[in-house]
């Protein structure tokens, strides 16, 4: 008669976990819900924070003695950098906002200039016509009109 007697640690561990977990879960949950647990947690927190404060104060005074910047002082420098970055971001945002307005204004200006250009063409045509007829009668030459002074004249 043979019997498998090899020891399977994992099966044992898993079995132990499953039994323990199901057995202890409810009682642990019950404890965690108790006000006394919250009170105990608060007391532990208080002790931890007292210790931590002591460490912070000791570290700060040591750093001061050896002329080294504290965490607070280094953080202040970082804050200054963050503030500068924040201002840059605000500027970028304003430029983005202005970009939209500028694009609209340029589009508007383009339309105005195009209309003006057409009007000037008509003026030139009319001048050409009248100069043609004048040349026939008086032989007077009309100088060529460039659009740029025409615009400045038009503005005036």
């Amino acid at each position, binding site marked *: 008669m043979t019997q498998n007697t*090899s*020891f*399977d*640690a*994992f*099966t044992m*561990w*898993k079995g132990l*976990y499953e039994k*323990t*977990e199901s057995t*202890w*879960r409810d009682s*642990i*949950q019950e404890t*965690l*819900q*108790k*006000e006394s*647990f*919250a*009170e105990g*947690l*608060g*007391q532990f*927190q*208080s002790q931890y*924070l007292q210790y*931590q*404060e002591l460490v*912070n104060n000791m570290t700060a005074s040591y750093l001061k003695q050896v002329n080294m910047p504290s*965490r*607070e002082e*280094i*953080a*202040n420098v*970082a*804050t200054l950098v*963050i503030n500068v*970055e*924040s201002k840059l*971001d605000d500027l970028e*945002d304003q430029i*983005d906002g202005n970009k939209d307005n500028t694009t609209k204004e340029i589009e508007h200006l383009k339309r105005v200039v195009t209309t003006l250009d057409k009007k000037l063409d008509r003026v030139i045509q009319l001048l050409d016509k009248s100069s043609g007829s004048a040349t026939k009668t008086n032989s007077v030459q009309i100088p060529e009109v460039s659009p740029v002074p025409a615009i400045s004249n038009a503005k005036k």
Partner: protein
Amino acid sequence: MIELGTRQLEEWMDGLPKDKSYQQLKKFTEIITTDAEPEVGQTPKEVIWTKNKAKLYRYQPAMKKTNKVPILMIYALINKPYILDLYPGNSLIEHLTNKGHDVYLLDWGTPGYEDHNMKLDDYIVDYIPRAVKKVLNTSNAKEITLFGYCMGGTMTAIFTALYPQLPIRNLLLMTSPIDFGDAGLYSNWLDKRYFQLDKLVDTLGNIPFEMIDFGNKLLNPISNVVGPYVSLADRSENENFVLNWKLMQKWLNDGIPFPGASYKQWIRDFYQDNKLINDQLEVRGRKVELANINCNLLNISATRDNIALPHQIAPLNDKVSSKNKTLHSVEAGHVSVVAGRKAINEIHPYIENWITENSK
């Protein structure tokens, strides 16, 4: 002096009998000591804006976007946001971008001591509106979908209530607590009479991740501390299980400090005074009224969630003015709602369908 490096451990294990138990122990030991950690957050992304430690990412920018409403994901101030892009094939962000959505993520980064004065007001008023603007400009879109996970969802709901004039088409919240009247065990532990909030923040500046993690693990100590290792030992031969186990352990133990001033507000105004649901919360002097939320709303809760309890999530739907509002409950936990088999097969497609339907 006792020195037990991995070489000594291997030598000791070589001396053990070579049965099934030995193989299991060897594999188990390899996984928790020498195996490399899996690479997380692999979906291609680019940074389109930064402010202090925060970064705004755009995912798969080269991929064709078929949905005209971009999605901005806003993460919590606890843990890192790569849970939303955990691993190829196990990533909500990858799923959404592959379906043609333009996805952005606002990652708050890791706060330093210099950020201990950062309040929730600062994140909500100075960062989120700017991020929304950047997303709309980059996508050239007229409307936006906001997605908030956990505490990030609470912050997103507050933001949406404060800025009803912004073109927010959809609001999607996942396991985001709103009503803190009964926050389970936290309500007991954070009792004003015993929990020394001011002293804690004044002494520590930022609240270390280990302290937050301790509180979360204490909710179910045996199951949270021993449970994962028992499961690993039991299923260490299953490669897929081991990969998911490593991913989850990496994320759970890869936390960030909580900025002190924000922590103080989070505990006092939410857990202790329950101001948000009662319209008593003020953000930079402005009253937060959840009734101002009028966009389409999908509010997801998880039945096994012991961090954001389902009854903390549901009351939002009664407060908002939205005509199109859905409360969706899933059989999952706080993390398995976003990563893992259930999330991949059911929750990611559900979210994608809802966003697509409400973005037409």
